[in-house]
């Protein structure tokens, strides 16, 4: 039997899983009642630590440990990152549109545990439906006393404010998100100080991803140990994966990690259309280095196994490319995205991403030169020294090094294809 935590309600009640009535009818807000009446703040934090829940936003940092860093200063804030912008990810959208009360209950429990009295949800502006649904849920929750001055008679006060982004990928980076939320330019901040010490309005702030927070009600109800028992030891719980690209059954899947990529792509994803061959896939969104069949089909789908193979699960975006894919064009498309989304504040990212894009474009246009491969790698190296994984960076934030992933991927796995394309240019030009 497949274990599901986050998607059971939306699967069982596809028409009204987003409403308070359906939520209450399916056990909703019972975790909150338990938290408020039976548990101390520390109990909740301990359960989250015990769950081994690792942040679902991409970095995979243990959520309970992060909570432990929250500085004692007041006021303190919880900010939920729903600026889901990594190309290939769309699972936060589904969780927010289809089960907003689950997210909200997670927010309320987390805020109670963290002694936060004002939580913010930063939703990307391109998600109007998710914003509408969540706002309705917030309104319902105020009405029903789950939010406000006295949450369900507990004396705990909490306000939740939604904020829509204005279309910048970088605002998914937590400190850029905080700047944007404050009304400033969406540019990542220098760290330290980290948000847990100096975050929103310079106050201690926890920034968590939608999926992470949506797991909190289940963990509260069932205990951290139960959560930790699901899946591999260091990839506990379920994980939402957004599968897209050349695949027969694209969509969001809530899976228990531990299977192989072969199983994921061919069993769950239904394999490649028209029986074509798999050429490569990106295991964790546009920022992640690519995997290839010869090397990685039997690698385990888990945070650590993917990391050990030089990539990341990230926010859970699996993008599949079949044999018809022009990998140079694919890399160029990703570079164009990063060059466009670079905030521009630091030099290597601002200049480097657009340079990489320009060189790839030139190669695609038939004007490649043999030295361009070394040039691409050296530009990449000047953004992410050593081209190692996890990446080092000359930049302020990881956006620049993310843009390096397609370069290292195509030069590592598809160098002959790249060389051939350049050689054809030589013939054409020569």
């Amino acid at each position: 039997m497949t274990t599901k935590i986050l998607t059971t309600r939306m699967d069982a009640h596809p028409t009204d899983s987003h409403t308070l009535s359906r939520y209450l009818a399916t056990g909703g807000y019972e975790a909150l009642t338990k938290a408020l009446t039976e548990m101390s703040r520390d109990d909740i934090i301990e359960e989250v630590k015990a769950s081994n829940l690792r942040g679902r936003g991409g970095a995979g940092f243990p959520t309970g440990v992060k909570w432990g860093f929250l500085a004692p200063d007041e006021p303190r804030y919880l900010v939920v990152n729903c600026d889901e912008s990594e190309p290939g990810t769309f699972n936060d959208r589904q969780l927010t549109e289809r089960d907003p009360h689950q997210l909200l209950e997670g927010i309320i429990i987390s805020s109670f545990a963290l002694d936060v009295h004002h939580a913010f949800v930063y939703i990307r502006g391109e998600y109007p439906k998710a914003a509408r649904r969540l706002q309705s849920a917030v309104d319902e929750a105020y009405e029903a006393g789950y939010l406000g001055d006295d949450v369900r008679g507990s004396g705990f006060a909490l306000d939740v404010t939604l904020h829509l982004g204005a279309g910048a990928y970088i605002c998914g980076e937590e400190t850029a998100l905080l700047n944007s939320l404050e009304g400033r330019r969406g540019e990542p901040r220098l760290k330290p100080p980290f948000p847990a010490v100096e975050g929103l309005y310079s106050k201690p702030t926890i920034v968590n991803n939608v999926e992470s927070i949506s797991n909190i009600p289940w963990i509260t109800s069932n205990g951290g140990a139960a959560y930790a028992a699901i899946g591999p030891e260091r990839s506990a719980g379920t994980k939402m994966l957004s599968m897209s690209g050349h695949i027969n059954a694209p969509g969001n899947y809530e899976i228990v990690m531990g299977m192989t990529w072969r199983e994921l792509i061919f069993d769950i994803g239904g394999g490649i259309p028209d029986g074509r061959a798999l050429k490569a896939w990106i295991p964790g969104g546009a920022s992640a280095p690519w995997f290839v069949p010869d090397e990685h089909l039997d690698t385990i789908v888990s945070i650590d196994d993917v990391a050990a193979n030089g990539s990341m699960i990230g926010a859970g975006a699996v993008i599949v490319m079949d044999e018809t894919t022009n990998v140079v064009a694919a890399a160029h498309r990703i570079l164009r995205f990063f060059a466009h989304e670079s905030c521009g504040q630091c030099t290597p990212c601002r200049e480097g991403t657009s340079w990489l894009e320009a060189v790839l474009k030139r190669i695609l246009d038939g004007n490649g030169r043999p030295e361009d491969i070394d040039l691409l790698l050296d530009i990449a190296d000047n953004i992410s020294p050593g081209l190692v994984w996890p990446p080092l960076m000359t930049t302020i934030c990881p956006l620049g090094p993310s843009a390096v992933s397609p370069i290292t991927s195509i030069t590592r796995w598809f160098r002959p294809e790249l060389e051939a394309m350049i050689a054809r240019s030589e013939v054409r030009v020569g």
Partner: protein
Amino acid sequence: MAEHGTVSIIINGVEHDVPEGERLITAAERVGEYIPRFCHHDKLAPVGKCRMCLVEVEGPRGSALTTSCTVPVTDGMVVHTETDVVKKAQEGILEFLLLNHPLDCSVCDKGGECPLQDQALAFGAGESRFIEEKRTFTKPIPVSELVLLDRERCVVCDRCVRVADDIAGDPLLEFIDRGSYVQINTFPNEPFSSYFSGNTVQVCPVGALTSVDYRFKARPWDLESVRSVSLVDSVQSSVDVHTSRGKILRVYGAENDAVNEGWLSDKDRFIFSAFRSPDRITTPLVRDGDGFKETSWSEAVELVAMRLGGHVGTEVGAIGGANGTNEEAFALAKFMRTVVGSPHIDAQLGDGLDPHLASSITARGTISDLDAASTILVWGPDLKETLPVLYLRVRKAVRNGAALVVVSPYSTGLDSIATHSLRYRAGSGPEILRKLAHGDAGYEAVTETLANGPVVALVGRSSITENPMLAEAVAAFARSLPHAKLLPLLTRANVFGALDMGLAPTLLPGRVSTGDAAGVSLLEDSWGPLPESAGKDTMAMLEALIDRDLVAVILAGADPIRDCPDPAVAESALDAAEFVVAFDAFMTDSTRKAHVVLPAALWGEVDGTVTNLEGRVQRLRRSVQPRGMSISVSAALDDIARAMGAELGAADWQLINKEIAAVAPAYAGMTADYLTFEAGEEGAVVPIPGATQPLGHIPVEVNVPVVTGRFTLHLAPALYDAGVLVRNSHMLEGFADPGVVRMHPRDAASLAVADGDLIDAEGVGLPVKIDPEVPERSVVITRNLDTTRGIAASADIRVETVRGEP
């Protein structure tokens, strides 16, 4: 472990002790390891944006590239600045910076003094591998009337944004767009109108920001640089004056942490454009009917000598001297007291303070005392409008945690960052002072703030309509605050120097009171007998001219018709005078009434010393030759004295400078040589250690009457007014406010006037501006504009609606 307050770090294998908490880039530079940088600036908060200063810092997981501008040094830190990894990173960053940067160095104003050029040479790879097309922008675009922006050249270092936002408090610049299209811009319909805009040009590490005036005027290697002082206001900011072929081409703020920390107001920076105004007086002029005719120096000197010599000394007065050097002021004081034999001398125009309070207040502080203050009290003119660089220093102190109390009859530039901002009706200052001193109900919070020392109190006269004795009472109150230091606020450029040189009816050179018998006798040993009668101040001199008790007057760069509180009195006085000689660079309302006008050199054209509001003496250096036949006031007086048969000893500024050090007790030892060879670039505060300050003025509580009346007037100062230099500066003229009467909405209602309606203020018609920040039954009018200069500074003002069409 290093000694207290320092930490030990190892840079490239060599151990150094450096100040704890200092940023690595600064600490490294301190010990001789220069790390390249673009966004880093010692006076700005770190942003770590350019990434040029990456170095390797050893950590628990090995060496990591780290921006040295963002990390503070810690004990035991091990740093490498020259490894292959660092070199590659730095070359990479430089290559990135140059990708889209136009290589137009040969026509760029920055070429030759450009950090990007210099560091590309020192740290760059030599050649770019970029063969694509560079990004281009329309160039240049104006961000203000003074500053142009070439976006192609911008390296996105954020310095200009930080200067505007953090230093000046004018958040009017911001980045727009993203990625390689990121660019500096202003907000829609909000130009970068800041009193401090020129600082952005100075801190720009490339040629992206240029001043309208300097653009394409010179190559840096053709410029000569002279370290001097900006004689625009009494802060006397240190400047580097850059000249080429005998012309001042630009003025840069010089790093003097005791005074201006490198910053300047735009008035400091651009006022020199008045020096080359076609309206400068360049030859001596003598009255010819209703006009003037040009004459030679010798004829003019003969005439002045004859006319001044023809009167009893005590029938002659002298007004002004606050805009020149100490040497010029001293020469005038000596000329009046010894050659003419008159005690009627005043550098202030009835718009200032008791000269004893201004020159010798006890517990006098320095500008840098503000950095250490827990609490700052500002009760005086709006600093932003009058002493803008001091305004920046107060802002800095507040940024670093000082509490600020501002007391003013009208909103001021500091209100927005003040802990407490107290507003009172013009003329009722004494009332609020009493409440504050007694901790009356409603004032407890302010009193509590003021009890947190050390306190630095900046005390002056917030308006010339304010009784000057109020400042005396405020100073007495401020002196009672814990660990209080006081800074008297007079604003005219070298007024403190002039008072110290004895340009006051009750002061002799070196802060000696005319009532101090020992001091008088000491000076008489050098100068011979001094006039016995008491001297008159400016207002008394003007009255005496009308009454024919005085018959002749010298105006030394003074325009009493514009600047004294009652223009009508000044005008009648100059009309009544039998002889008026004016030293000036421009024709003014007052010089037009003179019988002889002598062309005076301006401060870029003379050498000498000057004294600022903290008593700091600095060297003012000549950077260009005086225009036309202009000479210094002291040289002119020396000639006139000789023609009168006397020896003034003022032919050359260095002679005067030596005499000051010899006869002015507080200035003992304060020679130009001391300033050049011992005091260093910061100058020195008088009295220097070992010298004496004869007069120690203790402010006293005085009972100042509260002004009552239907409306009371606050004549507010403005940085850009119709002052002679501003209106002759092609850079700054036109920035002045058109002139309005600001009043509270309820007062406007009672007069049945709306915004823009014309009203009659003491016979001057001005439009109304309704402003809830103005206390009720007050009106606020900007002083010394073309439209407002006729308004007398009486506290009580008649305001009436105008009947009929304006």
